[in-house]
């Protein structure tokens, strides 16, 4: 699946769009570095990652030209700290005001990411703002607007509309099997550019860049724990369950259950009860009561892996 890089006219320039399978921020940073090396000042409106993470990896001569507008730390402007940039400030005048704080001259505007803005403002408003930025910023010359778009997050109609407005679109995606060698994963970038003369250029190039080693993991960074630590896993594995046959082959519940680890809701058994006649007892379950405040002890989800570890409730 391809991601895309789009640029918005009238300021030409590519901006990457990516998908969960292949990130485009690395490519965006190469465009940023290229603009800085050309002597342009680069205003980055960052909403998705902290400023330190965005600046990481740039040479000193690039970072000196980088002016970061922080929309990540306080996007809703709750703390009201100076220097932050909120979603509601993304208007032509708001952006032009921030640009005016930088040096005059050729300027590249970078949006990281456009998807973040499109999830908070309607598309027509965002497109109109982008079109008006070069006109509103009278004190400097906006040469290009680069924006990162996460293609996965938007319906195809919206992506097509942005494609039609942009001067150049660069898509990033994983390279086919067998392409490239070495440590870094190869990626393919395809660019579609509309020139002022009316020509349309299409180019496909291969590049290698190291994607951060993260997968799409919805269970990461949660306030509760969906996974087990090693000790918790061992405790769970050692848990005896009421429905297991003994090694000697007795049916379950022909003898009363004996739980050494779980604490029954009704209180711990004082001593082993007398054997009951051989008829099945109605099953009853014990829910382990959490012993620590930090997190609940997970329910035993799987039976013990080996028969030798079965603590047969029937062997008394």
């Amino acid at each position, binding site marked *: 699946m391809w991601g895309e890089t789009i640029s918005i006219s009238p300021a030409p320039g590519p901006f990457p769009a990516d998908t969960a399978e292949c990130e485009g921020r690395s490519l965006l940073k190469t465009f940023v570095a290229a603009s800085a090396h050309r002597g342009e000042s680069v205003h980055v409106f960052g909403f998705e990652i902290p400023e330190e993470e965005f600046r990481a990896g740039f040479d000193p001569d690039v970072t000196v030209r980088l002016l970061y507008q922080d929309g990540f730390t306080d996007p809703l402007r709750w703390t009201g700290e100076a220097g932050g940039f909120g979603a509601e400030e993304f208007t032509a005048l708001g952006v032009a005001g921030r640009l005016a704080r930088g040096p005059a001259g050729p300027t590249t505007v970078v949006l990281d990411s456009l998807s973040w803005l499109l999830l908070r403002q309607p598309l027509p408003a965002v497109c109109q703002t982008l079109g008006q930025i070069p006109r509103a910023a009278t004190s400097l010359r906006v040469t290009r607007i680069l924006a990162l778009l996460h293609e996965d997050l938007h319906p195809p*109609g919206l992506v097509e509309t942005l494609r039609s407005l942009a001067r150049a679109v660069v898509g990033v995606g994983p390279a086919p099997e067998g392409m490239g060698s070495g440590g870094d994963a190869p990626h393919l970038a395809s660019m579609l550019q509309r020139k002022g003369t009316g020509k349309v250029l299409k180019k496909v190039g291969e590049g290698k860049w190291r994607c951060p080693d993260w997968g799409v993991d919805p269970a990461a960074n949660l306030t509760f724990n969906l996974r087990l630590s090693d000790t918790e896993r061992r405790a769970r594995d050692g848990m005896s369950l009421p429905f297991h046959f003994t090694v000697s082959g007795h049916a379950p519940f022909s003898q009363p259950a004996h739980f050494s680890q779980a604490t029954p809701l009704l209180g711990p058994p004082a001593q082993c009860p007398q054997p009951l006649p051989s008829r099945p007892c109605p099953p009853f379950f014990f829910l382990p009561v959490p012993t620590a405040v930090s997190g609940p002890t997970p329910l035993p989800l799987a039976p013990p892996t080996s028969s030798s570890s079965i603590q047969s409730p029937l062997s008394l």
Partner: protein
Amino acid sequence: LLGPTYGTGSILENTTLEVLDFNLLPSSLNLEDKYGIYSNLLFKYFLAEGIVCGHNLFVASAKEDPADILKELPAPLSDDALKNQVDEKETAIKSKQESQESMKIAWRYQNLPRIEVNIPAASARFGHYYDVSKVVSPELLQSTKWHRFFLPEEMSLHPEIKTCNMTCGYTRLLQSIQRIIYQEGFDGSYPQKKQKNILRIGIQSLGSVLWGDDICCAHNPEDIYSLTKFLYVLRGLLRMSLSACIITMPAHLIQNKAIMERVTNLSDTVVGLESFIGSERETNPLYKDYQGLIHVHKIPQLNSLICDVSGTKDLAFRLKRKLFTIEVRETLRDFNV
């Protein structure tokens, strides 16, 4: 039902066209090709024809400054330049004919008349010819009276409105057109004072997101009727004035097809452009001579009760160095012989 600008203009289909005449059709809708290249070209042809004929222009856009659009209009070809162009073509065809051996298998076609390029006399000529590789001269542009509507400019005049939704944008455009029609007397307001002239209106990329409309990006738009209401009111303005209008629209982006049906109903002429750029037809040998296809969805039935009886609808266009031509596709024409 017809405006006073009605005339004999129509799309010629049987020969190689060098002019697609939009002259006399009250409202003409041009459905944009995917990258908007050729529809922009036809848009500019329409306006250039207005300049050469001495008409007044009204250019509306939400994307490009109208002044920049006018600066890029194609330059009209003078008679001498046109004759040279035609002579070049004739020489090319003659040399091709001489080198051609007599046909062996297709001998039945040997006696068919050759395609001849004739340039009709100026009096019989319909429209003008343009050189796409050159832009119109600033002097010709200065002698033209034109009016502008640029949506970002209108919005900056009213900064209290932060974003212009479609209703706001379309309403402002209609008000602007109405004001110009009234002030300049195109509706007969000043019958004796001014010489009658025609107003050519060009609206670029109507319905796109830059006009504040979301029909291009949403299947269930916020206001599905705003575009059709605009067209309905515009039609009324055109009918009661000496004006003609061309509108380009990114139909390939409009998600809801019912909207396109209504828009087609509200227009007099609807022409769709399909360019081969980026499609598999670009490398298809059948289409090697052309850059795209023209689909005529609707032509005006002027004072007529019969339906569309045009001979063929298989039209293709090509852009060669200087000229934009529309032709019947040769493969099908050969079958018709």
